[in-house]
């Protein structure tokens, strides 16, 4: 059948639909929480208090959101080019390696004003390089980017374990960690929480991505490729080069997770710091409709869930850490995979309100 219903108004599409999705997720979570014997409203209160109840908790929420912004933007940039980059996890990991290596090599010689930009650039470079390989395989060899990026996540994890255990481990240490970075590489951070200057970098990236996608000829060509590759060829765009560009930008954005984690929090190279942010970025981008502004909102929600969820697990023993993961999973399910579920209902509602 042809489209039997008229499309939703733009505001409903961008604001109402995600809100309905989140509401549905929370209702489902509420039912589950009730089943395990906890008052859902009490749990919700704790969750909210945990996420925004004190300056410190707000700081942590924003710190988590920073990571989600980076990976959400990474997924969105590739997606506008018609590329599904699910390798954010590995690119974030390598981004961390890049900035860590730069710092380990230079932090004893450089002052902060030189060290920090170099380390950030190294994170972008390594993230981009890690994305460039699957991009090249796609553009020249036709290997599907979904397959290659996900495989590169495993390669990245294995590589990092090898490097941390065998090469970068601090002398005399029993845990796979590098030596501590010198203070010259530390980003200014909020006392009592993990929030640091990376948030400014993330917001800067949002503006930059917005300008790039909608206000430069390359962004235009990238979006053309995403919507209609044949039209892009017709317009004279080299699809191979554009694929490389899109994936490298995407990888660089994901790589910035390493900046937030290593330069803002850990101050050394550690294992497993990407902790699923790369994958969550897919849900963030989906929920944020691949627009920087939407991604910021979605990232804030995911950050609040992460932080509030941790508090919840701490306060209520029956709600375990795993339970919190289930909650996050449900939000991802409803705002990611089932994002279109309530659309027909809303369309019906709007058609009812304004009969044609």
């Amino acid at each position, binding site marked *: 059948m042809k489209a039997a219903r008229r499309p939703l108004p733009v505001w409903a599409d961008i604001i109402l639909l995600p809100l309905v999705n989140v509401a549905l997720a929370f209702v489902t979570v509420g039912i589950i929480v009730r089943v395990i014997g906890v008052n859902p409203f009490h749990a919700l209160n704790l969750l909210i208090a945990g996420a925004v109840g004190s300056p410190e908790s707000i700081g942590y929420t924003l710190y988590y959101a920073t990571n989600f912004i980076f990976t959400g933007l990474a997924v969105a940039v590739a997606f506008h080019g018609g590329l599904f980059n699910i390798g954010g996890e590995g690119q974030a990991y390598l981004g961390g390696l890049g900035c860590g290596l730069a710092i380990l090599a230079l932090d004893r010689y450089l002052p902060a004003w030189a060290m920090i930009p170099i380390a950030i650039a190294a994170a972008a470079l390594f993230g981009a390089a890690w994305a460039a390989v699957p991009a090249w395989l796609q553009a020249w060899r036709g290997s599907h980017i979904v397959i290659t990026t996900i495989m590169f996540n495993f390669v990245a994890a294995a590589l990092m374990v090898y490097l941390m255990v065998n090469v970068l481990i601090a002398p005399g240490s029993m845990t796979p960690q590098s030596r501590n970075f010198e203070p010259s590489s530390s980003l200014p951070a909020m006392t009592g929480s993990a929030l640091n200057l990376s948030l400014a970098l993330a917001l800067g990236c949002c503006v930059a991505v917005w300008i790039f996608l909608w206000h*430069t*000829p390359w962004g235009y060509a990238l979006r053309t490729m995403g919507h209609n590759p044949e039209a892009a060829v017709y317009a004279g765009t080299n699809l191979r080069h554009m694929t490389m560009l899109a994936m490298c930008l995407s990888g660089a954005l994901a790589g910035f997770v390493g900046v937030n984690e290593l330069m803002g929090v850990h101050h050394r190279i550690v294992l497993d710091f990407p902790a699923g942010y790369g994958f969550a970025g897919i849900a963030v981008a989906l929920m944020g409709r691949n627009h920087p502004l939407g991604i910021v909102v979605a990232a804030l929600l995911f950050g609040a869930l992460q932080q509030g969820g941790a508090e919840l697990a701490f306060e209520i023993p029956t709600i375990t850490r795993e339970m919190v993961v289930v909650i996050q999973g449900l939000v991802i399910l409803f705002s990611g995979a089932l994002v279109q579920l309530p659309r027909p209902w809303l369309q019906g509602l709007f058609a009812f309100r304004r009969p044609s």
Partner: protein
Amino acid sequence: MTPAIELVGIDKSFGSVHAVRGVSLAIEKGAITGIVGENGAGKSTLMSILYGLYHADAGEIRVDGQPVRMESPHDAIARGIGMVHQHFMLIDTFTVLENLVLGAEGGPLLAGGLAAARAELARLSRDYGLTVDPDAKIADLSVGEQQRVEILKVLFRGARILILDEPSAVLTPQETDQLFRILATLRQRGVTIVLITHKLREIVAATDRVYVMRQGQVVAERRTAETDAEELAELMVGRKVRLQLDKAAAHRGEVRLKAERLRLVDGRGVVLLDDIDLELRAGEIVGIAGVSGNGQTELLQVLAGIRPPSSGTLTVCGRTIDARHPGDPAEMREIGVAHVPEDRLRQGMVAAFRASETAILGYHEQPPFSRNYLLRGPAVGAHCAKLMERFDVRPRVPGLRSSSFSGGNQQKLVLAREMARDPKVLLVGQPTRGVDIGAIEFIHRELVKSRDAGCAVLVVSVELDEILSLADRILVMFAGRIVGEVESGRADERTLGLMMAGAKAA
């Protein structure tokens, strides 16, 4: 006599689009009824309702005077209604017989069903004069023969009422004539036929009665003998239409584009273009005629720089392109080659983009749209508004999604974009595919205007009428070769048709 089919007050909306509005019509038994109208007039929707693909919001369908409900195509088939689609639904690697029994195999073992089908096919062939070799593979048949198989398939399922949707879209004029002879035979044998088309010539040639649709309504009903193409065109569009294009003789200037022994071979070694020699001069319109799929698409792609030739040379305004020095579309645009692609939806525009964004496709890196690495929104919008004004694109809203415009307006926008920079060479593929008659007139006049301003224009079209009225010189393509060249004054449909079928080289 009761009509074979009666539609009474059929109404159908898709969201806010009122596609069919209170249509009532009667299909006479044992006659050929034409339904004519522009794209989007609602004829296909109406037939889909009759065939059970859509459900009408209101109205009644009567078959042999009995009100019926068409829930799905199964109901339609059970009542003896069969549909021959514009795009064939045949399996290339199967034989005619195997295609025939598909979906009606008649039991778990194929052999029995096939034997019965063979007997039935022989009877159908005898009764209706539809000869086809039952054991031939579909891939080996000509397009005309494939269509015959489609018709046989429908008859095989016991159809007494045949609906044909734009049946001549893929046929040469000769094959079309053959089809009409077949339809005439079927009519003699008592089959009822509904012919949907937008080609007036066919309505006049083949039908007994014609309904004209416009904007979802039946606006006229005529006995074909009592009307003519001019009147039908006027009814279709709702105003007087000039079917003839006025144009002065061409003033030919220097050679702008020259192809010498151009070949294109694809990855599997299939020769797509074979020794193409072509010359295009300033101030002339060269038309490329041919049945769709004979290399015209590939020729346009090579000329526009989208695909490099495998061998041979192409010289455009002084730049030479060959296998070792390929051009690309951006460079060709710089040189002054504009290209209106054959399939505007797939190549010429981005459906999800705003009209203003579609209006700079291919020119997005050039000033004034791009300056200091930034896209200039106001310049882009103003440019689009100017194009819309000049080419009468409606509605005049640069911010509207490209896909929200009708086919004719999309085409005008693409054409406007390509003609905006006064190109030296203008390549146009299917200038009026899916475009309504009013816009066709306008597009043709613009192309002639551009020619008169000194542009070298190449038009590829599968509509022979269009080539005949536009071109100063006509080249005919068949199987990747140019098989003939005719000055337009001396061209007629018959000779061109024979060349298009590969039967004769001039």
